[in-house]
């Protein structure tokens, strides 16, 4: 009984931070949450710029954090594919029957003119080890209590040297993100507009991404359907299959 009292007293004396989850842990859980062993998705991209709004539909397949294939199904872009392998991104244009490897500054170009760059598709999601992460506060987004985290890159090899992200405390979903250059200029902004549940998985159904270097421009990414942890053929992510 005496021992139990001592332990209880010690627990009371421990600082509150000892129970708090670390920034690294939050980001790691959020990145894990956003990565499926394998997934098949159908979605839509609503791209708004100064010329108006354009809608493109697509199907995508992904495996782990390094492999994905997007095939556009909307009339104007039907058959265009974007393949991401561990180190490369390839585009396939069916009309020209041309395969293009994206590299260098071309990676900053928006996919189909959207605010999502090819660069945004690259790189691993292991931000917990790449950034120095600090929890700076709490805010409510879409009625959900979120941690506000400030990320500063430990390495030069990440595209965004500074990030501020809002992560949902309940489901570890990144609800909002601001992505900065090294000198602190806001380059890109991401915000979840609608949360929902598909196949028992809570996820962002509508996400707005804005390239802050483009005026009056944003892209809304809509998830129509998601099947997580499905069996996917290796050929889906092969270069040989890309032009078929």
């Amino acid at each position, binding site marked *: 009984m005496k021992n139990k009292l001592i332990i209880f007293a010690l627990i009371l004396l421990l600082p509150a931070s000892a129970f708090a989850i670390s920034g690294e842990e939050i980001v790691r859980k959020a990145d894990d949450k956003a990565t499926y062993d394998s997934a098949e998705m159908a979605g839509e991209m609503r791209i708004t710029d100064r010329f108006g709004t354009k809608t493109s539909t697509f199907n995508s397949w992904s495996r782990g954090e390094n492999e994905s294939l997007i095939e556009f199904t909307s009339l104007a872009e039907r058959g265009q594919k974007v393949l991401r392998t561990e180190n490369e991104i390839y585009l396939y244009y069916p009309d020209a029957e041309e395969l293009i490897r994206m590299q260098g500054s071309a990676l900053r170009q928006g996919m189909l003119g959207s605010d999502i760059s090819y660069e945004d598709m690259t790189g691993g999601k292991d931000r917990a080890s790449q950034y120095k992460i600090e929890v700076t506060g709490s805010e409510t987004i879409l009625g959900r209590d979120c941690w506000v985290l400030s990320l500063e890159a430990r390495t030069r090899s990440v595209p965004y040297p500074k990030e501020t992200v809002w992560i949902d405390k309940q489901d570890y979903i990144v609800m909002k993100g601001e992505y900065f250059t*090294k*000198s602190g200029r806001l380059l890109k902004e991401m915000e979840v507009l609608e949360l929902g549940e598909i196949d028992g998985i809570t996820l962002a159904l509508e996400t707005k991404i804005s390239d802050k270097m483009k*005026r009056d421009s944003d892209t809304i990414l809509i998830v129509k359907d998601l099947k997580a942890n499905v069996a996917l053929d290796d050929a889906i992510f092969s270069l040989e299959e890309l032009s078929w």
Partner: protein
Amino acid sequence: MKFVISLAFKNLTRYKRRTLITAGAIAFGIMMFIMVDSMLGGAEYESVRNLKWYETASVRIYNEGYWEERHQTPLDINIPEGASVVKKLEESGYTASARTVFSGDMILNAEDFGEDGNLSVQVTAIDTAKDYDVFHYGDTLVDGRFLEPNEEAVLLGSWLAEDIGAEVGYWITIITRGNGGFYEAMDLEIAGIVNCPNPNVNRTLIMMPIETADYYLAMEGAATEINIKLPDNADVEAEAAEIQKTINSFDSSVKLRALDWKYMASDYLAMVEAKRGGTGIVLFLIFIIAAVGISNTMLMAIYERIRELGMMRSLGMSDGKIRASFVIEAAGIGLIGSILGVILGILANLYVIYIGFDLGFFMRDMDIGFRIQSVMRGIWNIDTIAGAFFAGTLISTLVAFIPTGRALKMDIPSCLRHQ
């Protein structure tokens, strides 16, 4: 023989108008040949000069792994402590300057440019104190001022500035990836506009101070290239080998490689070589046109004198002497035409070399392969002038053989009745 020469000379002076018209046709052909050859040679010469003066310098030093990856303009394959390498090169007697070249997106703001826009660009960060010693931008400024060290400003090529509607004082934003891969954005004021005679450069040129690029891109004193200027008549291959030996002796953490401009511009030189084939065909066609013109006028001149030839035969002059008289007369016409042609060719060349033809109106929007921006100038080519002179005289002489021979095969009454 003296009589034959005298007869030929008399015939030349007797038919002054015919002689002058025939010689004039020969002269025009020779003048055109000399002028076109001068212009094509001049375009090639100026292209090479503009390539060295504004693009490649004489010799360039890279990190050994850079050349294969140069199209990606990688910042991480660099020359550490660029300024210190330049200093060592200067101590070895070379004129050198460091540069950092990177790719990015140029963002144009509606406030200055009327509407928003962006385009992919390549930016060259220069050592503002030394770059003009290696490259020849010193006299190309058409608006504003040159760059100052450390400032957040750019110089633009005048064609690029025209294309995007840029003026001095406007601001642009360059978004790029720094050394390692991180994003960086730089707001830069347009400090000046340069009109570079190399069209490839003038269409795309964006320069900024190397110190500013160093700070934003986290280069930590590294540069992507060091350019070296050599005298125009230097044997660049031998000099590059010498520079390679010099840099091998430097205590550098990376292996450096010196490349001469011929190696760097090998694609361009291959194209020039192919173009030279085309140029040869153009010159050959001009030569053929001139030769046909000369032949035709000589044929006409001889055929219209078949009656005269019949008269000489009926008076007892031998066929050999008649042929010799006509051939010498033709050679005389060819000589007069060639002399006139060379004089006219030299006069035309003076204009082509010192004033030139301004072809900027169509070179502005098309790439003809040559690195010349607008005024196409010529060069002196003594071989061509001498060759055209001898060819003009020789062709005129040779073509006289055929109609004279045919006329001599006719019987005398037929010659006398010939209309």
